[in-house]
């Protein structure tokens, strides 16, 4: 949703998505405003993860999928033949549901995205690693052990490491696919704080099954059910005065 003054950063129009014969998304149109947090909520299997994975074309790697409709990033259709999917994924970063650090040192994890793009200068890499770790509020906890294996970190730290790794390539949009579902409440609080600060520099889209989380961190909320977009509005409006009966039932805990 855009506030009308600026064009949306990333926008889908009549998005339909099929896994073989199964239709996972039905005419989903969502416009995510720049430097805002947009949350997607809904019961399990409603298509919210499928939706967010279309935004950086991560679904491309799954065999047997089909997509209809358009997705625009800064007005440019991301499926245009002249769009390089590798460059798209650098601009639209992603943090996955389960923390997925690589079995490398903390430093090498963060530097990974830069190295694959040809950055070799040690000085520059060190700068970016520090900046990214500060950006994900992990620097103070790991600055003395950057050469240690990332697997030695706790689950919450691993997830912030993954966030830092995504930030290191300077994306414009950061997608979060249920980033807190595998970590404890204290670590969750840290990541929610982090998402709040991230929107100063990035456009954030977050999928969550935790409604309180959506209410706390987002500016706009989309409610999806069975592949359909039921309601999309300012978060405050969705949680205090939803226009759809389905949304109201869901957020008051009558189902889901």
């Amino acid at each position: 949703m855009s506030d009308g003054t600026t064009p949306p950063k990333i926008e889908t129009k009549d998005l339909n998505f099929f896994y073989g014969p199964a239709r996972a998304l039905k005419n989903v149109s969502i416009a995510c405003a720049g430097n805002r947090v947009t949350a997607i909520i809904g019961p399990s299997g409603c298509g919210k993860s499928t939706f967010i994975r279309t935004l950086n074309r991560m679904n491309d790697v799954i065999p047997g999928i089909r997509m209809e409709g358009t997705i625009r990033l800064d007005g440019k259709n991301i499926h245009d033949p002249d769009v390089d999917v590798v460059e798209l994924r650098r601009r639209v970063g992603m943090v996955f549901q389960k923390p997925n650090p690589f079995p490398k040192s903390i430093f090498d994890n963060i530097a990974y995205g830069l190295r694959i793009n040809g950055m070799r200068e040690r000085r520059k890499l060190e700068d970016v690693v520090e900046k990214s770790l500060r950006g994900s509020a992990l620097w103070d906890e790991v600055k003395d052990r950057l050469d240690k294996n990332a697997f030695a970190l706790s689950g919450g730290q691993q997830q912030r490491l993954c966030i830092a790794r995504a930030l290191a390539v300077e994306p414009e949009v950061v997608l979060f696919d249920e980033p807190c579902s595998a970590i404890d409440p204290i670590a969750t609080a840290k990541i929610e704080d982090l998402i709040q600060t991230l929107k100063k520099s990035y456009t954030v889209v977050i999928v969550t099954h935790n409604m309180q989380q959506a209410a706390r961190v987002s500016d706009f909320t989309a409610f999806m059910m069975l592949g359909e977009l039921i309601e999309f509005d300012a978060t405050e409006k969705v949680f205090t005065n939803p226009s759809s009966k389905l949304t109201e039932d869901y957020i008051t805990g009558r189902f889901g």
Partner: protein
Amino acid sequence: MKQATQKKIAQFLGFFMLRACLYVVLAVLLLFLYDIGRKGGGAISWEFLTQAPRKGMTQGGIFPAIFGTFLVTLITAILAVPLGMCAAIYLNEYARQGRLTRLIRLSIRNLSGVPSIVYGLFGVILFVNIMRFGTSVLSAGLTLGLMTLPWTITASEEALKTVPNSYREGALALGATKWQSIRTNVLPYAVPGMLTGTVLGLARAAGETAPILFTGAAFFLPYLPKSLGDQFMALPYHLYIMATQHHQIEQVRPLAYGTALVLIVLVLGMNMTAIVIRFRLRRKR
């Protein structure tokens, strides 16, 4: 109370049977190794390992056979290792998964079960006759390579499958190309397993007789092979001759046991190498 006792007895019997099975297998294996070690140990000497057979193979050593086995295994490795690993990478990472890949996989598994004599005959037709390499160390090595390929491919693919998909997706999401994600975030973690499986396959090839029987192994040669077109002596074939084909079987028996011991130690050594490689690379991570 009564039921609790019954459960305990059942558990005891269950574990006892499993343990007994393991001990039986171990006992047979140890007895076998002990027998060969006892009867063959006496034959082992510096001369035995470094000299050629003399006086109708009743004296002297087995150096040409050791050398031949090394050489033929090297050719096998040159063919089977890169080809097998690359085929596995393509099959597991790039190929569109579907009916065709399933069929290919099934065929490869079936090929690894084909008796080695069939590979031997196939090698005669393809390498010796059609490609005109003659009965030579090259033909034999290529035949063994063909036989080892299904093992290498299967073992390499299994190793690739143990790398979590989240490593691939994580790299792609950071703007890596597919090749970059495979090269920097999949292969480093799969290579130890790939090498282990490959070396085990090579060890099996080194001990095979049937595939080299008609393709290049010689009964007796007074000289070492000078080129890839020459015939060669090999440990397993040499052993086969000493054990069944020699006209003075009783007299050469100690030498046959000695040859068997050398062959077993060689294969064991290759398997140990595989374990060491895996251990080293695992720790380096």
